[in-house]
């Protein structure tokens, strides 16, 4: 698998993503979650959620200095990021819009986007 392939793959999957805001008539009513106090989302939180939701490839050291690595270089395609962001949204009770997720190219950008969303989410 070459990096070029990954880039194509990314373009392909990004294109699936809706570009308009969601008009939703209601939320899930059966969710039972612990309401969390305002907290910070860290790179270690992201590492954990990536491992749980999208797995890791053996040749990638997720514990290394990954903040500015491109997600494709870490082995994560758009589906992996959709799964990861869905898990973040559920666990941290934060709304991440489609743009936020798909425009983040690196862990640093995604962590920043999650914290920005947390800062504006009422507890």
């Amino acid at each position, binding site marked *: 698998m070459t990096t070029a392939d990954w880039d194509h*793959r990314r373009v392909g999957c990004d294109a699936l993503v809706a570009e308009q805001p969601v008009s939703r008539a209601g939320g899930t009513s059966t969710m039972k979650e612990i309401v969390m106090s305002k907290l910070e989302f860290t790179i270690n939180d992201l590492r954990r959620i990536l491992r749980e939701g999208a797995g890791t490839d053996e040749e990638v050291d997720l514990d290394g200095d990954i903040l500015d690595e491109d997600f494709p270089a870490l082995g994560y*395609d758009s589906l992996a990021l959709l799964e990861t962001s869905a898990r973040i949204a559920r666990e941290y009770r934060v709304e991440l819009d489609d743009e936020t997720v798909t425009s983040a190219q690196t862990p640093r950008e995604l962590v920043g986007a999650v914290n920005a969303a947390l800062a504006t989410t009422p507890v």
Partner: protein
Amino acid sequence: MARRVAITGIGVIAPGAIGVKNFWSLLSDGRTATRGITFFDPSPFRSQVAAEADFDPEAHGLSSQDIRRMDRAAQFAVVAAHEAITDSGIEWADLDPHRIGVSVGSAVGATMSLDQEYRVVSDEGRLWLVDHEYAPSHLYQHFVPSSFAAELAREFDTEGPAAVVSTGCTSGLDAVGHACDLIREGSTDMMIAGATDAPISPITVACFDAIKATTPRNDDPEHASRPFDATRNGFVLGEGSAIFVLEELESARRRGAHVYAEIAGFATRCNAFHMTGLRPDGREMAEAIRAAMNEARVDAGHIDYINAHGSGTKQNDRHETAAFKRSLGPRAYQVPVSSIKSMVGHSLGAIGSIEIAASVLAMANHTVPPTANLHHPDPQCDLDYVPRTAREWRTDAVLTVGSGFGGFQSAMVLTRPGKGAA
């Protein structure tokens, strides 16, 4: 002399149209059958629109036992097959059951029944060790969707080869392609072939929500399916079935059958790229198109209408536009291309067969159905997509294509009887 395959009967269950006549009227009028989901409360979901069929199984002669036993998708297939056989004008009882087979496509099988039965046996998801005491006796038939082929074989008393083909969203093309193989090789003389799916159920809606593949255009459901339009943002889930009577061409002619079309060529390829993603260059679909034209012994200049996959996702519509240009060259700009998913939604495995039906009817009626809701073409989709209004157009050779999860890319060439290459 090589055996050839003719379509001699058609039956359709589609959103907004039960029966072939209503189906063609919907398509040629350019009406859309997409609406807010009514089968369940869609409010918890991101995408709340679908193309639902107003289907009353009892009105079509199914007994209460049939209705209890069969998933909605199987019911569609049986009713559509009755219409196809009646349409073929054949004296069914006179046929040799050994020489008739069944090939039915379905992407997601009995999903609707499985979703409903799971709720019960799991007590709304509470139990991991689900309770067998609450399972219906026909749960096994939902578990393995080859039951759809078995239902058709029993209903029409056939004893030739029977199978379900389940290649995701190309199932409807691939099942008919498989049926052609059986007739050509001489295993059967006649096939009940087509596809069915009834996926509009919470689990399906949720799984497409999770990857944002379906449109969230919930405030405007009638215009939610927008293939090739710059504002498209995902597909609209649909349901339905199209079933055909396929016959060996010479024997169909001998009995004086009305031959709608010859299935002149079919091919499928895999993109080996990604389970849901597509490479923008359309290479594998283009290869499938070339192989299908090769089998049909037609070249790009003969193709005069393309019935597109046109799902209305950002990447699909560019992918297949690229595939048409790559396989047909300049001809791609000269032929009308349209997507009926703009009107009847995307019924996953069924849609390939429903699109074969639309292609055949376009040929029969000298009219190309439009792509509804196309107002602002995507600059990267620069072919003639027949926006909004059907067009009078004589068609002797149609290309219809499909593309689906798993990477499957299929293409079929249908020709007017007597107009295909010898």
